[in-house]
């Protein structure tokens, strides 16, 4: 908290805060050693930039290294080559001011909803009382007031996602990383959650990298869509989404002509990759 204030009181608080949130990924390459002793290249020369406060969706076929990219942006993993810079500083160790929302449940099952949400501030040294107040506030914002004392297993999938969302946003991150956060939800819940995510995002405006398989979701949410190729993963194309904001309901926006046009253009690029990846995996499993 104190260090962040120090940064803010530096020259031009607003611009400093902003430049802090630029994500520059350049020449990112990641190789793994397989158990058989072979080198497997998951990512090859991935480069793209997310400007501060922009919402960037990454789409691509299964196994194209999207999640690997995210773990390197968050600092959970190190690149073999290339670099990730956040706010001009190269990532080594956990990136500061980053929040991560995972595809699977990452809530602690032995903590109550409130306990899960207040972890973020507590780990940053916020006094417990203050952390609790802010956790309650965030639970209210995601529509879970009154569920503070429940355990995660007592909630529905959608409610657990809301808890995860509150837990990710409570630290007011400058960067929000989401790995198919709504992948396991049913279509209706997913649409509702996406809409809520957008409205919460507009309140704090972190830079977002959002992985999804769902092109509709990508176009509806993002300012920028990165299409990746598979085997090894690299960037095929970057599209700008110029739909106006605030976008309101995610379900409504799907009927706008501009949405359909963009969705078509991106799908043309993506389809080839998906088919190629599918042929590979289908051939591989036979």
């Amino acid at each position, binding site marked *: 908290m104190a260090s962040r204030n120090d940064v803010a009181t530096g020259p031009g608080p607003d611009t400093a805060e902003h430049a802090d949130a630029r994500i520059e990924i350049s020449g990112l390459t990641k190789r793994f050693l397989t158990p058989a002793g072979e080198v497997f290249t998951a990512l090859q020369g991935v480069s793209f930039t997310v400007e501060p406060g922009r919402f960037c969706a990454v789409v691509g076929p299964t196994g194209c290294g999207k999640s690997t990219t995210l773990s390197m942006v968050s600092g*959970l993993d190190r690149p073999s080559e290339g670099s990730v810079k956040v706010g001009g500083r190269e990532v080594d160790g956990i990136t*500061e001011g980053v*929040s991560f929302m995972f595809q699977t*449940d*990452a809530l*602690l099952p032995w903590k109550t909803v409130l306990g899960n949400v207040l*972890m*973020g501030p507590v780990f940053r040294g916020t006094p417990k009382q203050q952390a609790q107040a802010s956790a309650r506030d965030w639970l209210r914002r995601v529509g879970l007031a009154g569920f503070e004392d429940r355990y995660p*297993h007592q909630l529905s999938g959608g409610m657990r996602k809301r808890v995860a969302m509150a*837990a990710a946003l409570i630290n007011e991150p400058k960067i929000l990383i989401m790995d198919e956060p709504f992948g396991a939800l049913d279509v209706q819940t997913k649409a509702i959650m996406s809409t809520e995510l957008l409205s919460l995002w507009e309140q704090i405006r972190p830079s977002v990298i959002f992985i999804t398989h769902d092109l509709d979701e990508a176009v509806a949410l993002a300012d920028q869509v990165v299409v990746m190729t598979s085997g090894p993963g690299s960037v095929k194309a970057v599209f700008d989404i110029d739909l106006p904001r605030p976008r309101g309901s995610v379900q409504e926006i799907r009927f706008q002509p501009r949405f359909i046009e963009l969705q078509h253009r991106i799908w043309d690029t993506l389809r080839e990759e998906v088919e190629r990846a599918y042929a590979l995996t289908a051939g591989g499993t036979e």
Partner: protein
Amino acid sequence: MSTTSTVSAAAVPDSGKGPAAAAAQRAARRRAARVWAGRIGLAVCVIGGWQAFTTWGIVDPFFFGQPSGIWQRLIELFQHGTQFGSFYQNIWTTIEEALAGFVVGALTGVVFGVALGQSRYLSDVLGPYIKMVNAIPRIVLGSIFIVAFGIGVTPKILLAAVLVFFIVFFNAFQGVREVDRNVLAHVRVLGASRTQITRHVIVPSALTWIIASLHSAFGFAIVGALVGEVLGAQSGLGLVIKTAQNNFDPNGVFATMLVIAVIVLGAEWLIGKLEHRLLSWRPPSPSETNAL
């Protein structure tokens, strides 16, 4: 079955679900009654058979005891005590030793298990040695402890602790290894320090395993204390058993055994309570069976 219940429900439309629910309840009660009848029947068969065979002289009660004799002996023990003080005092000695050994063994087991589970280097270095020590029949260590520490309570506590340690250690170690990678990544990104990760994630996650191990661990603590007492002691149930053995008194051995069984069951019940308290966050049914 289902046709009869629907027919009866149709015959009495006013009471709605009543008859069906009552029928289900009756079926459940009948099942419970059958289970209890089976249990009691089995006990009567075994104990009654034992009593009958020894009375008829098919089995010699001099070697194998007799239920009525065991009961008699039990009352004697409680009323007149043993040659080394009252029976209660002997019981208390054993409980004390087992309890102290249990606590020491469980605590060190958890500490080592959590430490080694988190450090790849430590577990690689110490792993083979721990396996080796685990392969040794540790009960024999009792002799060494008696030689080293005399016939007081210390060697019994140590023996119980050694037995408990390995059970708890392996479970804690495995529990730490099984921590959900996603949860770990989540907490790390939130900015948790190493100690915070241990406190908020590793230990609670391993607790399911640790508590499951405590159930069998207390049994082993008692075994450690008893064996220690049999090897050499001035008081304790192990000594009572050894004396009964030397006096060709199988009833005395069985009577003491019964008392020990009650102690272990009591401890088991307490650990069950503790488990319920600590693991109240768990969803009720499916994992409950895993813990057994």
